[in-house]
């Protein structure tokens, strides 16, 4: 009698208790990440900024006021707000704003593509090294160590300087530079997870290696790898613009922020402010990617 009344009272007091457990249990990991991001307005703002930058690069032909390669001998090196050339013109009379919009295509490609390839390649090697351990680990990781003996800028200059300029060579260089650090992060994450009890439990209950790798190891290793990869986008953009600045990037007249800075440097004493503009584009893009990656790190709860 008393038992019944207690359960009855509990049911009436909290009728939804059984149907809806606490929200955090329902959402799962990615749901929690999204919940934390939703209220992180700073990160959302910079995420929106990135989307805007990407969109303005993709739709450059629609929004650019001028043809980025159309030279005009009469209007060389004009200041800001000269007629319709909002950001002035360069040493060949080409519209700076249009060239910055088109240049975003190169810079974003150089920032994102090498990181994606390096994440896949480096991540794969890292997971294999971390999961296999032993000799395989030694061979892969000691091989990667050799690349860590170079500061990243020096390694990029070494490879790019030997290969020569051009877009493909630049993509290859950046990918080679970014792969070892990603491999190391993936290896650390994997070998930590491998030694955890739930992996042993899965193995004891007869799960296959493939199943353990995909269902247990990979899903847990992916957060630190993704967070780390996101920090590399800005690094890759800076490195790429540096290589272009040294003449190791796309060949003129293709618009590229680093290359623009390099050629405009000759006109420093004529139009100083105009000459600095491509760098502002690099800086804003790089800050946006850095802050979004900081926000992701917090939301995914990955330690630095």
């Amino acid at each position, binding site marked *: 009698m008393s038992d019944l009344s207690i359960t009855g009272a509990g049911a009436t007091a909290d009728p939804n208790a059984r149907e809806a457990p606490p929200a955090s249990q329902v959402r799962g990991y990615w749901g929690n990440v999204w919940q934390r991001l939703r209220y992180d307005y700073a990160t959302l703002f910079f995420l929106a900024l990135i989307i805007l930058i990407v969109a303005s690069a993709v739709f450059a032909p629609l929004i650019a006021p001028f043809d980025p390669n159309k030279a005009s001998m009469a209007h060389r090196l004009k200041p800001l707000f000269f007629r319709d050339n909002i950001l002035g013109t360069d040493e060949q009379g080409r519209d700076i704003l249009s060239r910055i919009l088109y240049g975003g295509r190169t810079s974003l490609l150089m920032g994102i593509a090498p990181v994606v390839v390096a994440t896949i390649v480096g991540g794969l090697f890292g997971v294999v090294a971390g999961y296999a351990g032993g000799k395989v680990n030694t061979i892969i990781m*000691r*091989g990667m*160590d*050799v*690349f860590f*003996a*170079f*500061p*990243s*800028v*020096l390694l990029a*200059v*070494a*490879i790019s*300087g*030997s*290969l*020569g300029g051009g877009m493909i060579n630049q993509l290859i260089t950046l990918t080679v530079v970014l792969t070892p650090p990603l491999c190391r992060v993936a290896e650390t994450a994997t070998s930590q997870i491998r030694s955890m009890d739930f992996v042993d439990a899965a193995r004891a209950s007869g799960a296959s290696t493939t199943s353990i790798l995909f269902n247990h190891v990979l899903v847990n290793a992916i957060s630190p790898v993704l967070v780390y990869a996101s920090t590399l986008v*800005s690094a890759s953009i*800076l490195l790429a*613009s*540096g290589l272009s*600045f*040294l*003449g*190791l990037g796309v060949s003129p007249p293709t618009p590229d922020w*680093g290359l623009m*800075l390099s050629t405009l*440097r000759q006109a*420093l*004493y004529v139009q*100083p*402010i105009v*000459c*600095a503009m491509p*760098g502002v584009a*690099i*800086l804003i893009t*790089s*800050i946006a990617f*850095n*802050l979004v990656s*900081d926000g992701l790190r917090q939301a995914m709860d990955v330690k*630095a």
Partner: protein
Amino acid sequence: MWLYAARRLLMTIPIGLGVTVICFALIYLAPGNPVQSLLPPDATAKDIEELKHAYGLDKPIPIQYVIWLGHALTGNLGISIQTNRPVLDEVVRALGNTISISVISVILAFVIAMALGILAATRVGGFLDRFSTSIAVFGISVPSFWLGVILVIIFSVELGWLPATGMGSAGSDHFSWFQWSEAKYAVMPIVALTLTPLGILMRTTRSSIAEVLALDFIQTLRAKGLGRTAIVIHAIRNALPQILAMFGLQLGYLIGGSILVETVFTWPGTGFLLNKAILTRDIPLLQGTILVLAMAFVGINLIVDLLQTAVDPRIKRA
């Protein structure tokens, strides 16, 4: 500790060898065959024969590597195509100029980063924390060569206070740090180099000190009645090994990665040498400079690791 030091020293050998393999391979990355890369285009048939013989270019690649390594170990890094002088001489002359501005920059960055990092870590979420963190984000996001251009615009073009390029009025031969008329040439390169390590070091300082401040023993110190300053000093001492490690890494990055800033200011260091090698496609010069810089980086890492074990005896890594 000595056992660890010996083991760490031994570990450097395979890495050093790996570095030489990569540097050797650079000749094969360059388009065209190695003979074209190593000799000026107007080389005579006799020159080509001599080079082929000296480097064993008609032999299999592993043997070529061994011959090349033998040359490199005895200080023969080849002849610069452009200047016709031994590469080693060129690199040694430039290296001092790079090391001097890099060391000053990284020390400057370290001092400012420690101050800002400690202020930020002890006031998490406060105004000073936000201010320092913003500087750090700017530091790691700004392209150093663009910062150099901005400095030139402000201090050379607009204000006319500092010379835009070069090293001393009479070139690098009579450069003196103790005369303003000469030392002023180094001011902007140093500032442009400082900001990136400043940002990174400030973040490391902030996070590692904040981490220590959250540990239990700090609570104990507080319970014992220690003042704020004394507690922060405890935290700094505990966080120092981690910060020192980052300090060494940043010094290495600056020495190896100063090419962009040196190019902007035509500062006659190794980075400028590399830029010259790239522009003139002087592969021997490129290869030799990179080998020396990478070896310097390996050496710095070794020293930092050993110093770290000396500072923090708890570190007994395998």
